[in-house]
């Protein structure tokens, strides 16, 4: 170990923590954008928005229930609807138990649903993810290792995503879960009624209140983290960075799912512009192009890229059909000529008043 003792003892444990915070913040930004997009389509697509609300409330309620289970408070009442969820404990526990169950409620929805998808991902992906080994245990190395772990995971995740086979049931399950996660991973409500908890700042405020309610617990958590780091250093293992890397991976899964949810909302918004039966044409293209490619390609070529090529053709052809429909059936891509240019065409002396 060639790092300075101050770096190793004081700053190094903070490196992966900062990394997680950074990715979690990116996740929050995506969630905020997702909520904004959903609120834009609320009027036209109420059932879809209600469904996403239901998913969000489901995640939140399940996380809260999990918090009560972990703290052994028990669950006496579990209620969930499309706009409201409530979990009541059997025993009202105070202190660290209450704090922990609330932590599950406020922070859980960001990571716990993603954890489910992470498990599915591990079950269906081929090969294991390489974990970076620590040598110096410095702040910089901690950051680098955290980044390397995230890169290794992202590589596997994106490889799976671009080669996702829609004729492979586990892949379909993974994709559906990914979409469901993206659609519902938000702790706030989007709806016709203006509610107080509608933005990211409210969520952050909740977490801040939660933290400052019991600062001692946070100090305790930091202490545990530091001790865990020192144990990792003494045993010359990379457990500490690996643990935080898992949170980073969960954030990446959440961000990817949110990007996919955004794509779906954009597709819906684009289809809203098209009127009549032509609206179903992109859906036909989506299914037909994939089925054609996926079923015909194996007889032409025999390689591992069949699913990827089919996926690419499906996305490209659907995108092209939507663009063509927008161009020829709507005013979307028509040039808007400036009045100045029109005046030149008509002649400069022409004046309506005259």
């Amino acid at each position, binding site marked *: 170990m060639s790092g300075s003792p101050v770096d190793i003892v004081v700053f190094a444990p903070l490196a992966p923590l900062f990394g997680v915070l950074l990715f979690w913040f990116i996740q929050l930004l995506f969630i905020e954008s997702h909520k904004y997009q959903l609120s834009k389509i609320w009027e036209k697509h109420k059932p879809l928005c*209600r469904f996403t609300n239901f998913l969000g409330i489901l995640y939140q309620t399940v996380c809260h229930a999990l918090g009560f289970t972990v703290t052994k408070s028990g669950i006496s009442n579990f209620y969930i*609807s499309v706009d409201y969820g409530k979990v009541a404990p059997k025993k009202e526990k105070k202190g660290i138990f209450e704090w922990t169950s609330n932590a599950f409620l406020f922070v859980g929805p960001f990571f716990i649903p993603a954890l489910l998808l992470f498990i599915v991902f591990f079950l269906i992906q081929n090969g294991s993810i390489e974990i970076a080994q620590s040598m110096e245990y410095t702040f910089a190395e901690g950051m680098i290792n955290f980044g390397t772990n995230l890169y290794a995971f992202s590589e596997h995740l994106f490889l799976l995503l671009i080669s996702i086979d829609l004729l492979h049931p586990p892949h379909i399950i993974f994709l559906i879960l990914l979409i469901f996660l993206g659609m519902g991973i938000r702790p706030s409500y989007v709806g016709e009624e203006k509610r107080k908890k509608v933005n990211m700042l409210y969520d952050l405020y909740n977490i801040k209140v939660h933290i400052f309610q019991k600062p001692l617990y946070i100090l305790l958590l930091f202490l545990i983290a530091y001790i865990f780091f020192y144990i990792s250093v003494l045993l010359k293992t990379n457990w500490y960075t690996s643990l935080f890397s898992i949170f980073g991976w969960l954030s990446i899964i959440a961000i990817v799912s949110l990007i996919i949810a955004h794509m779906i909302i954009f597709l819906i918004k684009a289809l809203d512009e098209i009127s009549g039966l032509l609206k179903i044409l992109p859906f036909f293209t989506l299914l037909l192009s994939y089925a054609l490619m996926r079923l015909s390609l194996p007889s032409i070529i025999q390689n591992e890229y069949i699913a990827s090529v089919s996926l690419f053709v499906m996305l490209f052809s659907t995108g092209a059909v939507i663009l063509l429909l927008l161009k020829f059936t709507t005013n979307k891509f028509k040039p808007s000529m400036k009045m100045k240019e029109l005046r030149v065409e008509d002649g400069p002396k022409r004046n309506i008043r005259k």
Partner: protein
Amino acid sequence: MDQNEILENERVEKSLSPHPLSFMRLQSLCLFLIIWGVLVGWLVNFSEFKDLFSGNEWFPILAWGLVLLLVGVIASLITIQWSIFFLFLGVFAGGLALMLSQGVLNESGVFIPFYSVAISILGFLIVELYRRSHKYIISNFRIIFKGGIITKRERTLRYDKITDIDAKQGVLGQIFGFGTIIPISQSGFGLGSDKSFAAGGINVGTKKVGFLGLFGGGKDVQTPRARSYYELHGVHPYKEVKKLVENLVQGHVITPYQQEQVAFQKEQVDIQKQMRDLLKKQMETKGEENESES
């Protein structure tokens, strides 16, 4: 609604049909058939486990049938409806019979997915036909329930005969805005009962002599339940319909104040009758006096 069916001064407030997704319980059976059939096709033909099924031509059929029947039993137990089990048994028996008659036992990996999809499409069509056979008419006098594909059933319920209104909305209903409203009549129409029974058996005795002791207990819980053609099943927009029905029921129920008024009016009528009788009597006695004077 046929004009002949409308009573004098009757006005139709709403004519409704169940929402397309309100029969999801039946539709989900078809969905399960498709998913499991396709999954069997994938397992047998493309998956990493396909070697497991290549040993014997009966393996895929047995796997398909076993899961089908197992799910049928579980679904039947949960919903207390054995028709689901017999439906799945019928699907399995039909598929098996077709495979045997056509001699395609070797091709079960291809046959099962196509057969499942075909049967499910048929199932979806029947469910849709069944849904469309339902018609609910809410008028200012009564609610008329109609339904049934082959046997047409009809129920007419006057608002003054409704004692209770049970309303429920599942998750899909909350998302799409539909729900079920069960008007319970004074006769108890619209009420069902959930029965549960627990039994335990014990074999007491030696090798030669033994007896079986059986202990049991049952429980009955009254719950609002009716056939889909005897309730407002999956109606949309749920909240609006519920409010309308409740208003109409309220409009046909005599409130305590109204009861007081009716009693008062009756009292007034009685007094007036008595006065009329007295006047009549007076007139008669006057007439008699005049006659005797003359």
